[in-house]
């Protein structure tokens, strides 16, 4: 078990280093002048060559790429992560201020996806091809097709028109102002949670239908156990293995999906910061945030693999 974890972590570390290089290359080497982003196309043409060189040096953009890369690594190691082009706040401060909101959204949405998805799957799998099964399958396919950010916009509009209600726009910490915090977080969490619930329900249903055909489930039935007990106690735990893997992967996608969803709700989280960085072409912020998202994604995958190996010895010894 420990060698498995160590091996997974080692591979994860290699991936993270690789990710940092790729993120850096994509955002720095590819065309697109950073000064144009800072001053706008018009402001840029008004600058003299000397001024341009001065600003480039000030931003550390005239050093050789390797040096720039090492500077970035140094910034990561010291925890400051560099500065935004446009704001006084360092990227690290921004992540500390906005990150918790997005993390809350992600966690609540995962819990919600299980609370909604698993019961729906059980109902479906108990009577395949019944009316309830067909309805729940169609609804889950429908939710795969609905873009989360659009659903978010509709919810915001609907609440505004019917109740004149809008979630507070300023950030609120969970500990200082839990009610305002919940109002901010709940909308995106519901939208993202329903999106995941659709995947979870589909996966859990097909996995359950497969497990139900196994011999040990038939034995449990033959013992005279009730249908509910057979499903809940014997079939479900085994059927949930692929669902756990999927849920981990989905959590990573939720982090990405929260970018447009946070924009739709106007949530002051990390996703909104990512949107701002993209629209301002703020390369420093962008590079750190993309890197952060990738690290979290890699770590989530490792966590899922280790959890699965811990639950299921067949994988550990492979």
């Amino acid at each position: 078990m420990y060698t498995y974890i160590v091996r997974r972590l080692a591979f994860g570390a290699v991936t993270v280093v690789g990710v940092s290089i790729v993120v850096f290359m994509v955002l720095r080497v590819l065309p697109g002048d950073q000064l144009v982003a800072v001053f706008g196309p018009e402001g840029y043409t008004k600058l003299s060559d000397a001024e341009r060189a001065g600003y480039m040096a000030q931003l550390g953009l005239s050093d050789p790429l390797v040096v720039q890369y090492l500077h970035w690594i140094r910034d990561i190691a010291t925890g400051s992560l560099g500065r935004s082009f446009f704001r006084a706040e360092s990227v690290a401060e921004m992540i500390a201020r906005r990150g918790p909101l997005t993390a809350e959204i992600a966690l609540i949405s995962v819990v919600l996806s299980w609370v909604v998805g698993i019961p729906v799957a059980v109902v479906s799998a108990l009577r395949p091809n019944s009316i309830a099964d067909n309805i729940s399958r169609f609804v889950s396919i429908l939710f795969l097709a609905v873009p989360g950010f659009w659903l978010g916009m509709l919810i915001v509009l609907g609440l505004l028109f019917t109740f004149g209600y809008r979630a507070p726009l300023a950030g609120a910490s969970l500990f200082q102002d839990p009610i305002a915090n919940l109002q901010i977080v709940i909308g995106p969490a519901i939208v993202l949670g329903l999106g995941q619930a659709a995947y979870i329900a589909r996966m859990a249903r097909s996995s359950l239908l497969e497990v139900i055909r196994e011999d040990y489930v038939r034995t449990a039935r033959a013992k005279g156990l009730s249908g509910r007990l057979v499903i809940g106690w014997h079939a479900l735990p085994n059927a949930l293995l692929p669902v756990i893997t999927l849920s981990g992967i989905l959590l990573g996608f939720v982090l990405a999906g929260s970018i447009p969803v946070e924009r739709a709700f106007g949530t002051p989280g990390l996703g909104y910061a990512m949107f701002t960085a993209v629209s301002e072409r703020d390369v420093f912020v962008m590079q750190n945030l993309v890197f952060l998202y990738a690290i979290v994604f890699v770590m989530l995958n490792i966590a899922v693999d280790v959890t699965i190996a811990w639950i299921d010895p067949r994988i550990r010894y492979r």
Partner: protein
Amino acid sequence: MSAVDPETVLPVEPTSRPAERSRLRRIAAALRNFARRAPLSAFWGCVAAAIVVMAIAAPLIAPYEPLKSDFRHMAKPPDATHFFGTDQIGRDTLSRVIHGSRTSLTIAIAAVLFGTTLGALWGLASGYFGGRFDIVSQRIIEFLQSFPDLILAMAIAMALGAGLGTVIVAIAITRIPFGGRVIRAVVLSLKEMSYVEAARGLGASHLRMMARHILPQCVAPYLILATTHLGVAIIIEASLGFLGVGIPPPTPTWGNMLADSLNAGLVPPWWLVLFPGLAITITVLAFNLLGDGIRDILDPRLRGAV
């Protein structure tokens, strides 16, 4: 060339025509079979086809010019002249939704054609040859998958600058790993089949083996994968447009229209939000259900794999 002696042509005709007719008949029979076995998917397949036709014939169908402002009708709710209302500078929403299907479908189809196909061919080669090539390929694919696809697409689109080609490339790159993984798994199981071994025993070259014996078996999973990924590509394209890294305005795309509606004022008019999103949902739903149907008919074993 035109002066062909009719008598030399005649004997050929009777053999070629029925062959053609029987192929048409086979396709028609297959479609009928599809409609009977998966009526829901067949219905949504027709919806998908209708959307494709709408995209192709957009200028003929759209009641107004999508870029033309009518300053007498600005930000008007739906009425008899503008069925879906107008936006804040008086452009007809219905026409913009219809024209938006062009961009969405072009990008989605191109991204899937490049990305999923490249991934599939890569998976075919890496599964077939195995060994070191396979190991390296697997690592690269795992690496590509260490970014959530929307973030990867955003970073690439932002770095390359907005434009049709950029968005296609950005989405195509995120599709590569999926094609690679699924097709590789199929090829790995095919390689052990006895007919493949027999062909190898007969001394078939690698190219012949892949093209003649393995590729045809990969067509079904590829089709299923491609249809499903069309839907995913459309959602990513809409998200990019919504975040302002997609096709630059004023080109109407569904994502751009939703982003524009947020700039229309403190409260976005409901018709500017509802209709573009509805278009995305219906299109994606149509492709997903069509993909589901194709999967059930062609290869029920792939349930859950794609």
